[in-house]
């Protein structure tokens, strides 16, 4: 059986997720015995129009990117969204929260805001433009989970991606809950699978893996009162990664 041809494309992002793949070390060699990379800007100079699996990193911010993504989709049998920028729109989506995008651009880029490569519009996750077959969540992704998804793909099985809150991982790690420190943590509504490194390192979960299915956001709003916090406190935390996902009804 010939190896599946894999292409990795980056859109608007920091390329930190690709870096996680590059850093897989021995596992990267294992990976390469099973796949043939045909385009991967961060690791090789060749490019190709023929591939089976397309891995998309980054969020979609410009019209020409949407066209490029649609072309990639039409060529690939399987399309994987890699990392929060691709799966959610990521931190880039913060821009969507402003009424006047031109103001944001001027603030970020100054006079360069009119350059053609900065003609950005509303930020979209990959799935808002084309159908996505698999998502590897996180900012950055967890290389172990990426390897697992690829192995499932190679074996023809469906990867089991957690659909329960980060609190499960956090309890397994026996971290003291951030709520006990009087902080708001997004763990109860965020998809697990990361191993809850943030609470273990003394930080609240900022939701980089996106929501679980059916997050109880209305409940979260009511719970805020029990901690003498406000719905705005909660919303300000959710904005970082979850702009455009289901919003709390204030």
């Amino acid at each position: 059986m010939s190896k599946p041809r894999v292409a990795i494309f980056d859109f608007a992002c920091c390329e930190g997720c690709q870096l996680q793949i590059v850093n897989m070390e021995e596992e990267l060699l294992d990976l390469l015995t099973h796949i043939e990379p045909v385009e991967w800007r961060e690791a090789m100079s060749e490019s190709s129009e023929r591939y089976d699996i397309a891995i998309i990193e980054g969020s979609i911010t410009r019209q020409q990117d949407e066209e490029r993504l649609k072309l990639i989709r039409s060529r690939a049998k399987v399309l994987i969204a890699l990392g929060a920028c691709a799966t959610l729109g990521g931190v880039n989506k913060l821009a969507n929260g402003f009424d006047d995008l031109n103001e944001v651009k001027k603030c970020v880029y100054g006079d360069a805001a009119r350059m053609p490569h900065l003609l950005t519009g509303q930020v979209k996750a990959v799935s808002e433009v084309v159908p996505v077959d698999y998502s590897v969540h996180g900012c950055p992704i967890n290389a172990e989970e990426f390897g697992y998804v690829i192995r499932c793909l190679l074996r023809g099985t469906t990867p089991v991606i957690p659909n329960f809150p980060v609190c499960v991982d956090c309890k397994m790690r026996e971290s003291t809950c951030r709520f006990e420190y009087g902080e708001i943590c997004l763990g109860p509504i965020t998809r697990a699978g990361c191993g809850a490194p943030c609470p273990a390192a003394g930080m609240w979960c900022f939701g980089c893996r996106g929501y679980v299915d059916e997050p109880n956001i209305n409940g979260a709003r009511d719970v805020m009162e029990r901690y003498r916090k406000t719905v705005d406190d909660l919303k300000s935390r959710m904005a970082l990664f979850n702009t455009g996902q289901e919003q709390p009804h204030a």
Partner: protein
Amino acid sequence: MPIVKYITTDQLLVWVNALIAAQTVYGVQAKEQRFAYDALADAADLRLDFDVTILPPKKFFQPLVETIMKFHVDGHYESVTSEEPFIIFGVHPYDVVAIAQMDEVFRANYADTHYLSRRERATIVACDIQNASPSMFAACMGTATVEDGFDILLTKIGDGYVVDVRTAKGEALLVALGDAPDADAGTLARREQFWDDARRFLNKYLLKCKPTDLPALLEDQYEHAIWEHNAGLCYSCGSCNMVCPTCYCFDVQDEVDWTLEKGTRVRKWDSCMLRDFATVAGGHNFRRRREERYRHRFYRKGQYLWQRMGQIACVGCGRCTTACTAKIANPVELYNTLMEG
């Protein structure tokens, strides 16, 4: 003749260090502002004054993530069990009761060799409660003290500990202790008093009925408004299950390595509060609604296990109450609300 010694705290440290030198010892240690069981490297890290650990000691018998089988895709497989002996130092009475209950669960019907192999190789050094945890109600549940289910029981009396040895496994640990006097009558009388107090006062919440009344109480409360009300706040985050010493559900998954031919079957803790817990083949979820899952936990604790084994599946440790960020997991508050009708 039962062996009941009295040792100083200094002797305790020397003893524990001698045990650590000989075999694996897990003990209660400080973790951030809380406590957790972990491998003990030095007796000085042992905190027998702990209030409660984040996870219960069941994690040593039913590990969070456990490889139970190795397989090859051609159909060959080999079961994996752990054979390493170990000691758990500092198990509170309510957890001793919970372990006994789990032993019964894992022995019933189909004997779970993975659990039992670990359990049989464990020596349990219990320790009476020196500090109450913020949400406990062990006295209400009759679990503030224990009669059996451990190999050794330590009780802090004065500046030292009464060491009460109940089994051959416990006696084996005494070799490392060396010479120590028997506890005298006065010390034992003080221990009786300590137990009496524990059975009366180790409650931060008061259950307004006897634990054995719970099955009947739950009988006609299936439609009570509290289920829906509290479920509105529930995140289905599973924290209340994860920390509970009498929850034992697990999920089994197969994973292949990079050979794509060899793999492992692992079982991980699972939780009935999670949205997809009751999803069966074909995608049907028989506890689809948050309210059904929220209610299920209290019925399982207060009634279902009673019907199966004649035991209440709650030992009053209060871990769920502390762990629930929505503050809706407290069994005492819930059952008392039902009692009000």
